[in-house]
């Protein structure tokens, strides 16, 4: 063979190459430092970007609940950070634990808790100091994470298990009743509120001007109002229309901000923005939160709800919107309140999209989201608005292995 030298040439524009950005380089990878054969993504970067998405509800929570909210977040995350290296040394489960994952879970848990937990004995409210619950929550969370096999192993969300355990043990103590006044956001003390007889304010939060000069306002949360009504145990005669008209705060306060709630669930707008950030970064699948919300909304319209509570009991009606005396506007208003008063959106964006909890295939995720949506509506109506969505996710996530096996991706060939 002729082995004569090869002559070459280069382009005037450089290397003779044209830059391309392939489809598989997602927005999530844009901040990573790629090598020739790898995107540069790591597990740490993956979960730290989730934390960035969580920053939006964190800021909203700090605004509405002040420094106590920051303390709650710091206490839970700090405890989890201290416990992580201890449990990481224990067995193969410990080796599956990662810092970024543990801290992300701790942030999620802290966002599900109310800010008033960072307090001692509150006169008239509790006989015990509440703050020990926070480090206990961090410890239990890390233990559950270890028990369930660390990152990627568990189909059950350790945050949900921890929270539901707290609900079982300390249920009434977890109900938030206070929110900072509009003029004292970020800086005020959320426990500085006087309990009043006017438990429901019909004015929007921004326009409320308490005369007592305190930092915060005491309010019955909308979720509790709905639980009393949908449980059918309301002591006096009450109609759905009356309840929505007189006994529940303005819907805008639930959507934007201004009502007592867990730290991360106080502003559904912030939750949605955080979720959209995660979507934009390609970290979560849009199908899950979208379908959960749509299906839950539809299910709430269909499932039986009490339209009147009287001495003889509650009158339950399917598809209340079609019933005389109720009508679609009223039914839709009720469903809006159900969706906004509880943690349904928070669960849909931040918990149901967790990597190990949801199925891998698209069809599996669709079925998963539909089931979560239906169960969310049912649990909110018949169990509790406050923790119904979490319970729904816990139950459906037990089916994820079956969904993975049944709904594998449809291969090309």
């Amino acid at each position: 063979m002729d082995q004569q030298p090869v002559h070459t040439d280069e382009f005037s524009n450089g290397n003779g190459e044209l830059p391309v950005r392939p489809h598989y380089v997602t927005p999530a990878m844009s901040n990573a430092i790629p090598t020739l054969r790898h995107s540069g993504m790591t597990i740490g970067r993956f979960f730290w970007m989730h934390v960035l998405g969580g920053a939006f509800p964190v800021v909203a929570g700090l605004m509405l609940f002040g420094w106590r909210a920051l303390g709650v977040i710091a206490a839970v995350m700090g405890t989890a950070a201290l416990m992580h290296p201890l449990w990481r040394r224990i067995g193969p489960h410990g080796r599956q634990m990662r810092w970024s994952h543990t801290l992300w879970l701790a942030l999620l848990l802290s966002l599900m808790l109310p800010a008033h937990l960072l307090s001692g004995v509150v006169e008239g409210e509790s006989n015990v100091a509440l703050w020990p619950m926070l480090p206990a929550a961090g410890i239990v969370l890390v233990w559950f994470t270890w028990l369930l096999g660390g990152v990627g192993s568990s189909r059950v969300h350790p945050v949900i298990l921890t929270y539901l355990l707290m609900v079982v043990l300390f249920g009434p103590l977890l109900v938030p009743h206070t929110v900072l006044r509009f003029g004292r956001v970020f800086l005020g003390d959320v426990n500085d509120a006087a309990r009043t007889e006017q438990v429901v304010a019909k004015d929007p939060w921004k326009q409320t001007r308490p005369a007592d000069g305190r930092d915060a306002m005491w309010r019955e949360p909308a979720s509790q109002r709905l639980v009393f009504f949908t449980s059918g145990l309301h002591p006096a005669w009450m109609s759905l229309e009356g309840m929505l008209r007189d006994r529940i705060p303005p819907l805008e306060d639930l959507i934007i901000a201004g009502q007592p709630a867990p730290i991360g669930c106080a502003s559904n707008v912030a939750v949605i923005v955080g979720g959209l950030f995660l979507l934009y970064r390609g970290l979560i699948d849009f199908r899950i939160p979208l379908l959960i919300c749509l299906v839950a909304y539809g299910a709430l319209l269909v499932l039986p709800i009490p339209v009147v509570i009287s001495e003889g009991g509650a009158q339950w009606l399917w598809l209340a919107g079609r019933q005389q005396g109720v009508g679609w506007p009223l039914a839709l208003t009720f469903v809006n309140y159900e969706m906004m008063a509880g943690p349904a959106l928070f669960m849909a964006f931040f918990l149901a999209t967790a990597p190990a909890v949801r199925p891998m295939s698209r069809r599996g995720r669709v079925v998963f989201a539909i089931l979560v949506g239906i169960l969310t509506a049912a649990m909110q109506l018949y169990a509790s608005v406050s923790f119904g969505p979490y319970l729904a996710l816990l139950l459906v996530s037990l089916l994820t292995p079956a969904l993975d096996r049944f709904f594998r991706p449809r291969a090309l060939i």
Partner: protein
Amino acid sequence: MKRYRLRMSGGRIGEERHGPPPVFEGIAPAKHQMPRASGIACPWPAPSTRVLVGWVDRLTGGGLGADRHDCPNILGQLHQLLTRPVDTVLCSLMDESPEVSLNAALAHHYPAELLAGVWLMGELTGAANRWIVAEGGTRSRWLGEIREGAAQLRLRLIWLRNDYPQSEATVLLYTLLNRKLRPRRLPTEQGVLLLDAAAAVDIGRIALCDEPVTLRPMVFRDHSAGISRFVHVPAGMKLSDAMAAASLNAHGKELRGGNLLRDVPIDAEATAGSGELVIHAYLREPMRSPDSCIRCGWCVEGCPTRINPAGLLEAAQRRNLDLADHYGLDSCIECGICTYVCPSHLPLLEGIRQLQKQSDRAMKQMAGGSESTG
């Protein structure tokens, strides 16, 4: 074909640049400039089987050879033509590595040969579809003569976005014709004769100029130095010698053929032949220990053939071929995208290849067993 959704990041895919196509330099003073054919003469008679056989022998004897992802086993395809009709002749001007425009550059410099090659194969096979697939954007400006010639010869020019691994035979056939070609099988099994630009140019050169194929157009990409060399390498020349002649230092560097993500190692002592035409040279990167799978699903999302690479790795770890079938082992085209995107740095492609070896061994054992019992 909606094989996957493209996720656009900050940059546009196929960013436009205004630059001339690369120039290939020749090899020896006598053949420094590989001559270009001035036009296409069409003396060939109407096709018949004997003519086809004759042409297959002529092309084989002329040194035609191509066995790469853009053009799988051209000789095998030609021989299958003798027993299996095709209805489509497809010439792909897209490259495995989209940033390297080797095929488009060949089309720019040797349009007559390329068109002749495609036209000839169309006439010989009697294919109803005679297509040339090219990438839009900058490269489309290099294909003026191809456009004109294709119009004259009634060859259809199709513009397609080249997003890796679009040029892979399985993905290309599915995109254009909705036909499902199993990986590692020949396109002629699905009624398609698939050529890349280099193979089409070789066919055209043998037909028009009656010259054997002695040169291979290749690109050497030195990632350490950040340069590429477009060269004509004498067939049979060692790659190390060719790279040295191209003033590229291959010493101490890893060599890979085709797209880098495929991780196909090439020995520096290998010779220029019918294999991959794009050779990457880079310094060995530090290995990173894999983490555990976090079930993010990015490998599933990124896979162009919609299999479950994480599930296949699990099957590889368990050495379970049934599980591998369940997760789509047969559909894997070994593009390597799963390994690229995995945050846990899992060796997904390596696991899949181990599974395929295991599957091949099992099939051979079964075939050997059935022969002995038969």
